[in-house]
C-alpha cells in the first residue's frame, strides 16, 4: 500500500521533471525574443484601442514604437507627460506634437437649414444618404443622424439641435469620426485654433442662401479683417488656414454677416440656446 503511494509520487515527480526540462529546452530553442520594453510601453499607453495612431490597437502601436516604426507623438490620446515617459523608456527625445481635435464644419441645424423631404428610414447618416441623397436640402450639410457620435470612442460628439457638435475638452483627435461622415464635414484641426468657418458647401452663394440661413457666402469680410494668409478662398467659400490660424478676436473684427465665422465655444452656445428654444439676437 505504502509502496504504491511512494511509487506514484516518484513517477509523477520524474515525469514532471522530464516535461519541465523539455518545455524549458523547447522555449530556449524555438522561443521568440520579446523586448521587455514592449510591455512597459503598452502599460503606459491609454489602452483605448481607438486606432487613432493608424495601428491595430495599443499593443500593435507599442510594438511599432519599440521597433522604431512609430513615434510617441502619433498617439493622439496620450498626454504630454505620458508621451515623455514613453520617450524615456525608448530612450529617445520627444518631438513636440501638435494636439489635434475634430471639428464638424457645418452650422446648418434644424432651424437654419431647410429639410427637403420627410425621411422615415434608418437613423444613420450613411443610410439616409442612400435615399435621394439625404433629407436635408443642402447637399453638403450635416445630416444630424449621429453616425459620427456613435463611432466616437470618447463620447466627444453630441447631436445638438440636429447638428453634430464636438466637445473640445473630450475630443482627443483620434480621427475615427472623420471617416464615418458620408459628407466629409469633419476635419482634424490644431487644438489651439479656436475659430472656424462652419460651412463646407462649395455651391454658389445664391444657391446656398436658398437652403440655409448660415452659409459662408464668400463675402471675404473675414479675409479682409484678418492678416495675410490666415484664410484661403476655395471656390465659393472661405476656409480657415489651419497652418496660420487667426485668433479669437477675428470674430468680432470681421462681423460675419451670415454668422458662420464663430469660435467653437460660441457655436456650441448658439446650438444649445436654439435647442432650448431661445432666439439668439
Amino acid at each position, binding site marked *: 500500500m505504502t509502496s504504491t503511494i511512494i511509487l506514484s509520487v516518484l513517477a509523477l515527480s520524474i515525469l514532471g521533471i522530464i516535461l519541465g526540462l523539455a518545455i524549458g529546452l523547447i522555449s530556449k530553442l524555438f522561443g521568440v525574443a520579446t523586448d521587455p520594453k514592449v510591455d512597459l510601453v503598452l502599460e503606459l499607453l491609454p489602452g483605448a484601442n481607438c486606432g487613432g495612431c493608424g495601428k491595430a490597437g495599443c499593443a500593435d502601436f507599442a510594438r511599432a514604437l519599440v521597433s522604431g516604426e512609430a513615434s510617441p507623438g502619433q498617439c493622439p490620446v496620450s498626454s504630454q507627460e505620458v508621451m515623455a515617459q514613453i520617450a524615456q523608456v525608448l530612450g529617445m527625445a520627444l518631438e513636440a506634437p501638435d494636439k489635434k481635435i475634430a471639428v464638424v464644419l457645418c452650422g446648418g441645424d434644424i432651424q437654419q437649414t431647410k429639410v427637403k*423631404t420627410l425621411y422615415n*428610414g434608418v437613423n*444613420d447618416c*450613411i*443610410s439616409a444618404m442612400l435615399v*435621394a*441623397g439625404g433629407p436635408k436640402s443642402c*447637399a453638403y450639410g450635416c445630416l444630424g443622424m449621429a453616425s459620427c457620435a456613435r463611432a466616437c470612442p470618447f463620447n466627444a460628439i453630441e447631436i445638438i439641435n440636429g447638428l453634430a457638435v464636438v466637445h473640445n475638452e473630450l475630443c482627443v483627435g483620434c480621427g475615427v469620426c472623420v471617416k464615418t461622415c458620408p459628407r466629409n464635414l469633419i476635419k482634424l484641426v490644431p487644438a489651439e485654433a479656436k475659430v472656424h468657418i462652419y460651412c463646407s458647401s462649395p455651391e454658389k452663394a445664391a444657391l446656398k442662401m436658398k437652403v440655409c440661413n448660415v452659409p459662408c457666402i464668400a463675402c471675404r469680410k473675414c479675409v479682409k479683417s484678418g492678416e495675410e494668409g490666415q484664410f484661403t478662398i476655395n471656390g465659393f467659400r472661405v476656409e480657415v488656414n489651419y497652418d496660420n490660424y487667426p485668433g479669437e478676436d477675428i470674430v468680432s473684427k470681421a462681423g460675419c454677416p451670415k454668422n458662420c465665422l464663430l469660435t467653437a465655444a460660441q457655436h456650441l452656445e448658439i446650438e444649445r440656446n436654439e435647442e432650448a428654444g431661445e432666439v439668439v439676437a
Partner: protein
Amino acid sequence: MNEQAINKDLKIVSFKGGVHPQKDGKILSKKASIQTAPLLERYQVIVSQNIGAPPKVVVSAGDEVKKGQLLAEAAGFVSVPLHSPTSGKVEGLVDIPGPMGVMTQAISILADGKDEWTELPASIDWRNSDADTLKKRIMECGIVGMGGAAFPSHVKLSPPPDKKVDYMIINGAECEPYLTADHRVMLEEPEKVLEGAAILGRAAGVKNVVVAVEINKVDAINAMMEKAAQFNVGIVGMKVQYPQGAEKQLIYAVTRRKVPTGALPADVGCIVQNAGTAAAVAEAVNAGIPLIERVTTITGEPVVNPGNWRLRLGTPISEALKLCGGVKCEPGKLILGGPMMGFAQRSTGVSVMKNTSGILLLDKSDVTQYESSPCIRCGRCLEACPMNLQPSALSQLAEAGQYENALKYNVMDCIECGACAFACPAHRPLVQHIRRLKAEIRNRTKKEIKK
C-alpha cells in the same frame, strides 16, 4: 366581370418565394386604353437617362431641332444617344430635380407646335439582315431597358463571344403592383411586341424566343397567343407573384437555370428584355423611329382618372398629372416606377425618362409611418426572399456594422426587391439596411483597389 379564360395550352411557371400584396392597385388603370398626350409647350429632357456613360450633348442654346433629331450622342459602348421629343428651339441646358433627389442636367426644348419629323433612317428588312446591322440600329435609336434599369439594349445583345446564348426572354411580367403600361402595350399592340421579340432574337442569334407574362393579364396573353406563331415566338404564363419580373427570378421560372453569384444572364445562356423595349425595337427597325416616347401608367388612389399614357421624354410630372385630371386629395407620396422598387420623389419638376414605367401617387393612408421594432424571428422574410438570403440576419449585421460577416451571408446577391421588408411584421427597414451594407462594402473594395 367578363374576364377571359386562361388558354389550356399555356405553360405556367414560377420561382420560389416572393410576396403578393392583396391590393395590387392594377384595377385602377388596367382597363384604360393607351392615350397619346397632347403636345406641350416645353420639354425638359434629362441628359443622363441610361446606365453607363451619360451621352454627350451636341446641341446648344438657340439651335432649331426637328422631332427625332439627335440631342446627345453616345459616349462609349455602354451609352446610347438621346433624341428630341418634338420640333422646336433648344433653350439651353437647365438644372431640374432629378429622379434620385439631386439636381440633374436637362435639355430644355421650346416646342414650335409643328411637330415635324427629322429625316429618319430607312426601314430594315430584319428577316434578311445580319445581327450587327440590327444591333447598330437599336443603339442608334437610343433604346434602353424600359422596365426600370435603363440598361442599353445593344450591350445586352452583345454578350462576350465565349458565352453561348440560347434563350431570349421578353419580360412581360409587370409584377410591380399598380403598373399596367406593359399590360396595355401587349394587349393593344401584340404584333409590335412579338415582332420586336423576334428582331431581338435575331439580333442575338437566338432561336428560342419567349414572352413571359403573369397570368393576371389573360387578355394580353390571349391577344399575343393568336399572333405568336407568325413570328415564331413562344408565350409562357407565370404565377402572379412579386418579383416574378426580376431578371434572375424570370430566368429561373422560364428555364429552371440559376444565375450564379456575380454572374450575368448570358452566363446561363439567357438574355432578358422588357416588353416595352421590344415594341420600341420594332418601331426602330421597321420605321427608324428613335425612342422619344413611352407608355407610362399614371395611377394611384389620389389620381382622378388613372390611365396609361404615351408620354414624350421630358414631359414634366406635373404636366403628366394634369392629363389625368389632377388629384382628388392630398397624396402621401409620389413615386416614379412601381411601389416596390420605384423611387420616391420630392418634386413634380422631374421629367419623364426612358425608364419611367409609372407615375404613382400613394394615398396618405397607404404611407403610414411605421416604428420599427426588434426582429421577432418569425422567418417570414426568409420565406419571402426570392434569392434565398437571410434578410433578418443581414439587417442585424448592418446594425452592428459587421461588413465582413455580411459578405459571408452573401449580401451582394440581394436584388433589393423589397419582398422581405413587405413581409416583415416588425416593420424592420430590411432593404435599407442591406443597401447600406452593399454601399459600404463597395466603398471598401474601391478603397482596396486604390491601395
